């Protein structure tokens, strides 16, 4: 953790940390609502889900586990108008940027993949780039473990270590605050009445304690599922590439609903389509799914991935081979959303375990 460290005259170090009280977070979000669309996680029957912050009465919880909706839905919308008529304008370019509160480590890793895909000089996606550039991320440590969480298996900790502006570690009465970017530092300075410098070694201990306990619990679950070790994940998908039986067995129950793609924080594939209304027309970008048969079909009916098992294999190949090769990152964050979403009960942890023969 980075703490503002002050060297006192005596030569000994005093430990200053930034503390934010619960009520002060409300005040901060109230104020930020002027410049941002602020989203907070609220508890629902399906688990934590993002909703617009509507003032101090909003019943949200910063800790817990990741939301059921992937963070990408606020940066790369499921369906979005990307061009209108022949105008060079970028639709919705005057919208307020998102301020996401309580973002978890796994979703932040998702950004590493989406940034790699969508940010570039010549063909970058303008709405994504704008939301990333102007948006604010107030992340938080996980304070619980979901039944499908396996982040430690992909070398992630259940607390953020980068990609955030400020991070909140829940402790009694409020949060220990960590700065992750220049934007975060400015925010804390601007709201210095809310963010207090405190000198409290006990707080630091509480943060560490929670992190250790949560990580341990994830590790126990990972061990139960026999997920191959991180350093072997890339290799096993390559090694088992030609092993048709494993892929067939793993894909047997797939009904091609595409839910695994929709909920995945790193799945970025989309389709452009046109729509006409009266004398106007618009181009839309919609999420697409590589598990659906027509995804790679070309005119004349040729389909390089005609069979279900080829499509499941392709999904794993993209996450465990392609992205490590081109971007140096495995494109699975261990969030477990695809496990919860799949009506065929296809469990990525079990597929990975099966690959290691």
């Amino acid at each position, binding site marked *: 953790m980075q703490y503002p460290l002050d060297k006192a005259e005596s030569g000994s170090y005093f430990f200053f940390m930034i503390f934010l009280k619960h009520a002060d977070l409300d005040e901060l979000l109230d104020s930020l609502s002027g410049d941002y669309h602020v989203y907070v996680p609220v508890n629902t029957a399906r688990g934590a889900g993002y909703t617009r912050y509507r003032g101090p009465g909003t019943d949200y919880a910063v800790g817990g586990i990741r939301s059921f909706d992937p963070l990408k839905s606020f940066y790369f919308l499921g369906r979005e108008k990307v*061009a209108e008529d*022949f105008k060079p304008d970028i639709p919705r370019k005057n919208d307020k940027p998102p301020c996401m509160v309580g973002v978890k480590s796994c979703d932040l890793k998702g950004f590493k993949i989406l940034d790699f*895909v969508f940010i570039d000089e010549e*063909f970058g996606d303008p709405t994504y*780039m704008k939301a990333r550039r102007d948006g604010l991320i107030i992340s938080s440590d996980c304070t619980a473990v979901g039944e499908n969480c396996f982040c430690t298996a992909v070398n992630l900790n259940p607390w953020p270590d980068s990609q955030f502006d400020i991070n909140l570690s829940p402790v009694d009465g409020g949060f220990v605050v960590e700065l992750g970017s220049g934007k975060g530092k400015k925010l804390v300075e601007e709201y210095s009445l809310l963010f207090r410098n405190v000198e409290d070694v006990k707080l630091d201990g509480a943060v560490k304690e929670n992190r250790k306990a949560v990580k341990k619990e994830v590790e126990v679950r990972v061990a139960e599922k026999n997920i191959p070790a991180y350093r072997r994940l890339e290799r096993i998908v390559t090694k088992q590439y030609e092993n048709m039986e494993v892929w067939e067995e793993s894909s047997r129950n797939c009904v091609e609903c595409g839910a695994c793609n929709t909920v995945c924080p790193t799945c970025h594939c989309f389709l452009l*389509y046109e729509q006409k209304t009266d004398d106007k027309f618009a181009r839309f970008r919609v999420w697409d799914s590589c598990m659906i048969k027509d995804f790679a079909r070309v005119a004349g009916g040729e389909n390089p991935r005609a069979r279900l098992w080829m499509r499941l294999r392709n999904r794993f190949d993209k996450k465990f081979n392609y992205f490590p090769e081109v971007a140096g990152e495995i494109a699975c964050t261990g969030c477990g959303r695809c496990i919860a979403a799949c009506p065929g009960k296809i469990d990525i942890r079990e597929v990975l375990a099966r690959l290691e023969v």
Partner: protein
Amino acid sequence: MKNPYRSIKTEVLKVTTETPTIKTFLLKPGEKLTFRPGQFMEMSVPGVGEAPFTPSSDSEIKETMEITIVKVGKVTEAIHDLKPGDTVGLRGPLGKGYPMTKFIGQDVIVVGGGVGLAPIRTLMYGLFHMRDQIDKLVYRAGCRNPGELLYRSELEDWMKRSDLDMKLTVDQADEAWNGPVGVVTTIMDDIDVNFSRARAVVCGPPIMMKFATFKLQELGVKDRNIYLSMEKNMSCGFGKCGHCRIGPYYCCKDGPVFTYDMIRDYPGIWE
């Protein structure tokens, strides 16, 4: 910030019917739009849809561009219904195209099939423009029957060029055809170039590309010197939508022209 999804308003100037299922469209983009041989465009019928096509005209002509299109489905059907004066959208140029400088000082073999003759037309113009910089130039083209031979009168003019070794074949002849009969690989045996250094370009239907590639290998052309125009399902055309992946590449952004050694080990390349 630029909007890469936006198309340029373009006027259809002329429609030429090549065969019952193939038409060539002469287009005039409303803004400056230039391309290099082998690059492609996303062409859209407003409100209907968009699809990738490779221009078939001389890339040195800057005001207009021609695109030759086979009617196969939803978008191409709508395109075939277009009349002069209609409006379409163009987005591009996309992809890398042919590495023309790699052809300098070398023998070049061009092999085309079917509708692949369209993008090859642009390449041939490009090669003619730099004809004095390349050694021998060989063109072998084939299609199913004489009726499907695109730009026939132009091809016949090219046959007369002394600086081009050119041959045409058809799978099935008609009464008027007096050239060779058979698939394109059957007219490749008499090619006389320095194979170990020659550059080869192949563009056509997947099955033809596959056998032409094997034939070129057999003749001694190196995998790294065989340039293939790959066709994959595409949507964005610039490496974001994920539709056209071939191993570590995206066909749109890293291609659509690849050397055979780049892609030979990945599954499904001929499909």
